[in-house]
């Protein structure tokens, strides 16, 4: 395994580091500071540079090793993944283990390390750095070299301190020790400090991949630059990473366009991409395309693995969507998150599938626009806008898909098409995408016509629910009688011993007049005695900005969620729902308002067809068996379900009414006959 050649400069000031960055050096290594602190200078340089790699030698004697691990993670994060650390000093193997143990934040449990010199009883790991921080070791004695061969990512030496022939001997010891430890000797970087006078051929003959030049003023790289061309691949995974690969996936065949951003189980980024909001996952590879062309490449790779699970992910919030899997391929669209205003006069915007709805709201807010999505800002565009979109303004503006103007998508065979209601732009596909999109392809951009939304009233009420059935019936009636500018939801949980049963009633009133807002809310607040109330006049953006920035999903297990669409909250339904709550099988019971503008759209206009429902009911529990036992009593009252909140198997027939399903099956046969897109509410192609 050859490494890419890199050139670095030894620096003692920020000025030298900036000069090296300007000259195109890959790396700046801060030398030991006789009169200062190399780590501090390196952090300072990180804040004053943008691109150049950063490294320094750290004598671990000055640090609590676990704190050094934390510091390395911080500097790597702050610098955007530019750090390498050379560890020196006594007991360096122990320090290496501890630093790595803290950096390996994806490993389960705290770090426990009991060495001869260092003992770490129970350090929490992390934060997860931006990339796998290479740990280099130094030292030219055989013992030092064997240690580096066993554990280091790189071995660094000063050429001026090595006698003739010593370098070759050193490499030999390094490699033998690596092989003995079950590693590939070639994976260890060789970092040499050299003088400035060497010619390209002399340099190459040294057999190292990283050259650090000692000079008061970094010199232009001109004579060396050509050496970079054709040197090793950008990504070289060490044997410890390759050892975690899953069977059935041809990793070497990952298309070149995706190889650099792909994540496999041994990679550091795996912790960031393996799981979703509510579901733990262990995929074999996560492909992260940045362009439509890369999606085409990714689908070719998926087609070549017909027996391997294949999941699509936009931002990974999906409850129903199997946007992760075990040992399969995940196509993550998170990087395709552009938001672009296409035509201000028509309020036409283009959005990538990986954008999150709070990012969309943030981009629209300065124009006074909004687009109702769901109720949570962390949800991604792609999953929601191919399923429906029951949001805070649903009764007034309809579903999210009702404002979809056109899509660009990649079909199962890799064809890139545009779909819209226009007769020459695949109108049937456009019909299918709006409600059953996950069966037909990967949408790479959505064009929405958004609308004007000013400040809105946002009410968060908590009411007594000693008689849950009565609250449900009264709230349902109040919602149905409310003007369309009112949308909202009701949330209840299982009764808890010693605590009064309550219901949370949330509502958005699309009006900027406080008196009108209060007037609209009065009937809702009157359904039961109020425990708490908060009503804000606030931008729509603040209502949907309820997800955290930064961080990554760390879902675990499998959510159990059931969905049903219903016309009216009748007393009979309310009693059955109360029994469900009392059963303790569900910890989350939520009803969102639909109806209004949602019902203005004819049932056959989109693949989302249950237009006459006024309410969307969803429950979550931990045991599928218990949830179903309780949920089955409610099923007679439902007419259809919303597939985004349903995790049960074989419910396709409830997601789509017969006429819709028949048309979908015919289209599936045309657009995805080999059933590449099979993971989420799979529609069986009609046999011809």
């Amino acid at each position: 395994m050859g490494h890419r050649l890199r050139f670095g400069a030894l620096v003692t000031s920020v000025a030298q580091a900036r000069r090296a960055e300007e000259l195109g050096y890959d790396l700046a290594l801060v030398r030991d500071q006789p009169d200062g602190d190399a780590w501090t200078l390196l952090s300072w340089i990180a804040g004053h540079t943008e691109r150049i790699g950063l490294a320094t030698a750290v004598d671990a004697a000055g640090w609590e090793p676990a704190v050094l691990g934390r510091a390395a993670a911080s500097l790597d994060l702050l610098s955007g993944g530019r750090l390498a650390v050379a560890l020196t000093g006594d007991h360096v193997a122990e320090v290496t283990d501890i630093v790595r143990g803290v950096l390996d934040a994806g490993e389960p449990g705290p770090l426990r390390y009991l060495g001869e010199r260092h003992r770490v009883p129970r350090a929490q790991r992390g934060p997860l750095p931006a990339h796998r921080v290479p740990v280099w070791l130094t030292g030219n004695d055989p013992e030092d070299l064997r240690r580096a061969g066993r554990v280091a990512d790189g071995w660094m030496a000063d050429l001026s301190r090595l006698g003739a022939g010593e370098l070759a001997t050193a490499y030999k010891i390094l490699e033998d020790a690596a092989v003995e430890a079950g590693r590939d000797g070639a994976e260890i970087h060789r970092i040499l400090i050299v003088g400035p006078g060497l010619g390209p051929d002399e340099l190459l003959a040294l057999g190292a991949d990283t050259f650090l030049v000692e000079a008061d003023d970094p010199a232009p790289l001109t004579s060396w630059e050509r050496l970079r061309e054709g040197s090793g691949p950008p990504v070289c995974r060490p044997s410890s990473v390759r050892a975690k690969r899953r069977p059935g996936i041809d990793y070497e065949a990952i298309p070149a366009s995706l190889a650099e951003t792909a994540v496999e189980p041994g990679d550091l980024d795996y912790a960031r991409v393996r799981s979703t909001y509510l579901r733990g996952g262990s995929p074999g590879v996560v492909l992260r395309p940045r362009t439509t062309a890369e999606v085409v490449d990714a689908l070719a790779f998926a087609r070549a693995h017909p027996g391997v699970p294949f999941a699509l992910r936009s931002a990974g919030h999906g409850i129903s969507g199997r946007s992760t899997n075990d040992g399969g391929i995940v196509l993550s669209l998170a990087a395709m998150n552009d938001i672009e205003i296409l035509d201000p006069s028509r309020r036409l915007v283009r959005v990538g599938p990986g954008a999150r709805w709070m990012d969309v709201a943030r981009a629209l807010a300065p124009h006074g626009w909004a687009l109702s999505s769901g109720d949570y800002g962390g949800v991604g565009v792609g999953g929601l806008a191919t399923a429906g979109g029951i949001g805070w303004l649903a009764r007034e503006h309809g579903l999210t898909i009702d404002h979809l103007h056109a899509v660009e998508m990649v079909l199962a065979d890799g064809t890139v098409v545009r779909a819209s209601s226009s007769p020459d732009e695949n109108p049937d596909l456009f019909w299918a995408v709006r409600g059953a999109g996950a069966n037909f392809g990967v949408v790479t951009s959505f064009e929405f016509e958004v609308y004007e939304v000013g400040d809105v009233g946002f009410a968060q009420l908590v009411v007594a629910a000693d008689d849950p059935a009565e609250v449900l019936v009264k709230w349902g009636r109040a919602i149905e009688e409310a003007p369309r500018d009112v949308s909202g939801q009701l949330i209840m949980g299982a009764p808890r011993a010693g605590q009064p049963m309550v219901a949370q009633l949330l509502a958005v009133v699309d009006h900027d007049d406080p008196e009108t807002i209060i007037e609209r809310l009065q009937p809702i607040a009157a359904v039961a005695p109020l425990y708490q109330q908060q009503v804000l006049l606030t931008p729509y953006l603040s209502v949907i900005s309820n997800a955290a920035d930064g961080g990554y999903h760390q879902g675990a297990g499998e959510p159990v969620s059931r969905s049903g669409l219903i016309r009216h909250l009748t007393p009979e339904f309310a009693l059955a729902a109360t029994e469900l709550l009392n059963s303790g099988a569900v910890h989350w019971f939520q009803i969102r308002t639909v109806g209004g503008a949602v019902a203005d759209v004819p049932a056959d206009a989109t693949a989302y067809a249950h237009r006459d429902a006024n309410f969307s009911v969803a429950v979550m529990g931990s045991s599928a068996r218990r949830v179903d036992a309780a949920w089955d009593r409610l099923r007679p009252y439902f007419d259809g379900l919303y597939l985004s909140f349903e995790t049960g198997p074989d419910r396709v027939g409830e997601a789509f009414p017969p006429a819709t399903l028949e048309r979908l099956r015919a289209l599936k046969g045309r657009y995805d006959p080999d059933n590449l897109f099979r993971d989420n509410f799979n529609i069986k192609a009609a046999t011809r």
Partner: protein
Amino acid sequence: MTDYGQDLLFGAFVTPTAAPVHQAVELAVAAEEAGLDLVTFQDHPYLPRFHDTWTLMSYAAARTSRIRLSGNVLSLPLRQPAVLARSHAALDRLTGGRIEMGLGAGAFWDGIEAMGARRLSAGQSVDALGEAIAVIRAVWDATATGPVAVRGTYYQVDGLKRGPAPAHDMSIWVGAYKPRMLRLIGRAADGVLPSLSYLEDGPSAYAGINEHIDAAARDAGRDPARIRRLLNINGTFSQFGRSFLNGPAEQWAEDLAGLTLEHGVSTFILATDDPTAIAEFAGDVAPAVRALVAAERSA
């Protein structure tokens, strides 16, 4: 009534959160742009949701140009005194004298021990801090003859080369509440840095803090007025005055000016991660406190 007549400083107390990665840095920049004098970061190296505070401070220092920076406060048990001295001096020289040292004897000993450091009792940790201050001052004293030699119970430094000296006369501010630590501050430190939310009797508890420090300072032949009185504060900006530091900016100014005039508190550090609150504190509260205090002092 104890007003030591110290110049007033206003700062922000920022959570060093690691996600979003640059949030704390952006708040430091916001504090500088708003006109605050100081931005400070808490230090809990056992918590992986936070950045390493020293690394964060060094990086944030590079992203700012005027504001002073300090730990609030750095956890001594997980950081070596000689390294603290050198790294602070180094960053102070890089920044042209914008760094102060905030030190704490250690809180949350379970976390400290989990990282591999030794658990100390409260009394031991005060003694250890006293020794650490001796080491730090000796390292900074670059012109003294001979190497650093501190032979303490907790820190033994022998033969360490002195220097570098900080670029300016760097202060050591110590987080403290109890008499032994306060007396140590009176003897050896340059400031006391408690948090309002930990003062059991509220702001009036500062009178007791001053008593201990002042007595110890006088016993040691030091001028109590040269020991800075800092306070981490938290509050809410609201339209109508409700309680201490819960009201409009004018009320905040009166509350804080009262603390300066009555207890000599001269540095107010607002705990917030909200740029709007930082702007209001810097733009509306700080000038009004300065005006109220100046008027009273010249009266």
